[in-house]
């Protein structure tokens, strides 16, 4: 099993000939991922790190049977790249690209949803299952195979925490970096059911941030539908309130969205909440079934 990616995952890299695309194609390969095709319009016939490049995702899929996409194309073209991958039949797209206008992402999200495709990101580190596959940019070095799932809204902080789990002698089943943009394809609530159903996951670490109500919603889900132990951390407990003009945003999340409401909701749902990142590994070790995941 594992979550969303498996040993059968075959990745097409959209924007493979750019700097990031090329660097991370190599890293994905080193992780053991089947990177089967790349796409850059006008570059068909070339290759990057031994991976053949095509003009379109459809041509790439036809030639390589790719079933997941990793999108590195610049923000102005990301919307088109995602629609192209969905139309080519890809049902898992990791969008690494940052600075995509949320109006574009609204279209991408709902389009993918109608077509039954899952987006991770944008502006995210992606997904990785040690020993199986990685789609995205999480550093290979932080992983070792194990039974702890990680779901995070952060980037580098995720690496730090995943690495902490490894250094504690534990390993990860699957780690998903959701991305921190206003509109993301996969939220905590979307991701948790996969971990619930994954027989290779014994516990989940959830790394949240202040703002929005994604953590409160996750707590609600955990309370009613999640049976595995959860360790959570909320970054920004002591952050100053953002400068925000207009008050419409606050109206939506009224009475939610602060570190306090998130921590309280998660604790009420039975999660162990770490106050600092370095407390996480001990808490995880404490909730794991005896000897599991080591």
């Amino acid at each position, binding site marked *: 099993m594992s979550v969303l990616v498996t040993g059968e995952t075959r990745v097409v890299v959209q924007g493979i000939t750019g700097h990031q695309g090329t*660097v991370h194609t190599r890293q994905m390969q080193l992780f053991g991922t089947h990177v089967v095709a790349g796409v850059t319009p006008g570059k068909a016939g070339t290759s990057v790190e031994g991976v053949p490049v095509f003009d379109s995702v459809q041509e790439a899929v036809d030639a390589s049977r790719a079933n997941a996409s990793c999108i590195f194309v610049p*923000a*102005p073209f990301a919307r088109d790249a995602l629609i192209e991958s969905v139309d080519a039949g890809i049902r898992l797209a990791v969008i690494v690209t940052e*600075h*995509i*206008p*949320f*109006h*574009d992402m*609204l*279209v991408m999200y*709902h389009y993918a949803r109608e077509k039954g495709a899952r987006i991770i990101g944008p502006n995210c580190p992606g997904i990785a299952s040690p020993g199986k596959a990685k789609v995205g*940019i*999480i*550093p290979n*070095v*932080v992983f070792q195979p194990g039974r702890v799932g990680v779901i*995070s*809204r*952060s*980037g*580098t*902080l*995720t*690496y*730090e925490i995943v*690495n902490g789990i490894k250094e504690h002698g534990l390993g990860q089943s699957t780690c998903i970096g959701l991305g*921190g943009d*206003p*509109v993301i394809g996969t*939220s905590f609530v979307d991701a948790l059911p996969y971990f619930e159903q994954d027989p290779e996951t014994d516990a989940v670490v959830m*790394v949240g*941030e*202040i703002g*929005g*109500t*994604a953590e409160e*919603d996750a707590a609600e889900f955990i309370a009613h539908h999640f049976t595995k132990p959860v360790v959570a*951390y909320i*970054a*920004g*407990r*002591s*952050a*100053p309130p953002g*400068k925000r*003009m*207009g*008050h*419409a*945003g*606050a*109206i*939506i*999340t*009224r009475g939610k969205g602060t570190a306090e409401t998130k921590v309280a909701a998660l604790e009420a749902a039975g999660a162990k909440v770490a*106050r*600092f*990142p*370095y407390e996480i590994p001990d808490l995880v070790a404490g909730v794991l079934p005896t000897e599991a995941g080591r």
Partner: protein
Amino acid sequence: MVKLAEWRGKELFRRYGVPVPQGQVARSPDEAEELVRTGAVPLPCVVKAQVLAGGRGKGGAVRFANTPAEARAAAEATLGLDFKGETVKEILLEEKLAIGHEYYVSLTLDRNLRVPILIASAQGGVEIETVDDKAIDRQPVHPFPGLAAYEKRRAAKLFGLSGPTARSLDLLLDSLWRAFNQEDADLIEINPLALVGDRLIALDAKVVIEDDAVFRHPEYAEIRDDRTPLEEIAREKDIAFVQLSGNIGVIANGAGLTMATLDVLKEFGGDPGVFLDLGGTDDPKKVTEAFLLMAQAKPKAVFLNIFGGVTRCDTVATGLVEAMRQVPAADRFPLVARIRGNNEKEGIEILRAAGITATPGLKESAQAVVAAAQGRA
């Protein structure tokens, strides 16, 4: 975020067919007096300071005038005023209208539902967060079909409107919806939306354009006007930089790690004030630039917290050492570096060789930098 001044918001409204009062912007008392004298702005009129902060009515930033001389006087009293930290450089002169009722309406993003949301209240003219939750109506609007007729009917019902006034609300909401999408807005807010006779008129305009969409709207690139000078320099160099009160500077990579660092510093009694997010860069030149920028903010101490995933710790260290060499003696600050991950050992070595304390422990380093800021190191 690109926050438009009221007058710019109203120009945008005019383009999209949202009714606004007759009015014009002025930048001097002469100009203000002239606008009224020539009839470009009818009398009596309102003189409104063009600042982004709310509460202008109570704060003396809105005045009234019945004659050109009064308009000049109001302009003189307002221009140059310091309003909640903003200096008034522009004023908007507008016809004064006989208001029947004041409503509230806005469009913004609901991040959770992942759709825009139409917020309406029959209690307008006051800050919306002071309005009781039950008096506020929220309707998600799916971007595909767009604003639906039934949603507009619900707003009209909430406002108690019917007939031609309901019809004009209809047109107004359609205009807002088009503007929200075509201008890539983050927020469009009308508060108050005034009933004047049987017409609806936007008395105020708050429009925020999404930063990430400015590439589609080059006209907005020049009017981001809520940054400090250092933040502006940082933006030009494409470095995420936020300046608040507090005396510890934090340089980290990634927003989450920056926030976690802040949490840890506060835990140990620190008072972090400047945040600089290197993002994914490990270009030594960029690291140097970032540090020189930090030096200008004159922190008491600086905490460098890097987890090298994609970023390489050694190149960050190289950039840092170069920066410390360039910082003028007067601007020097105590520095604590905590670097982990990719090429960690090489990075620590480079820093130690340059006389900079570097450890891999977050807790210990945080304690060290707090002590340094408090003059205890």
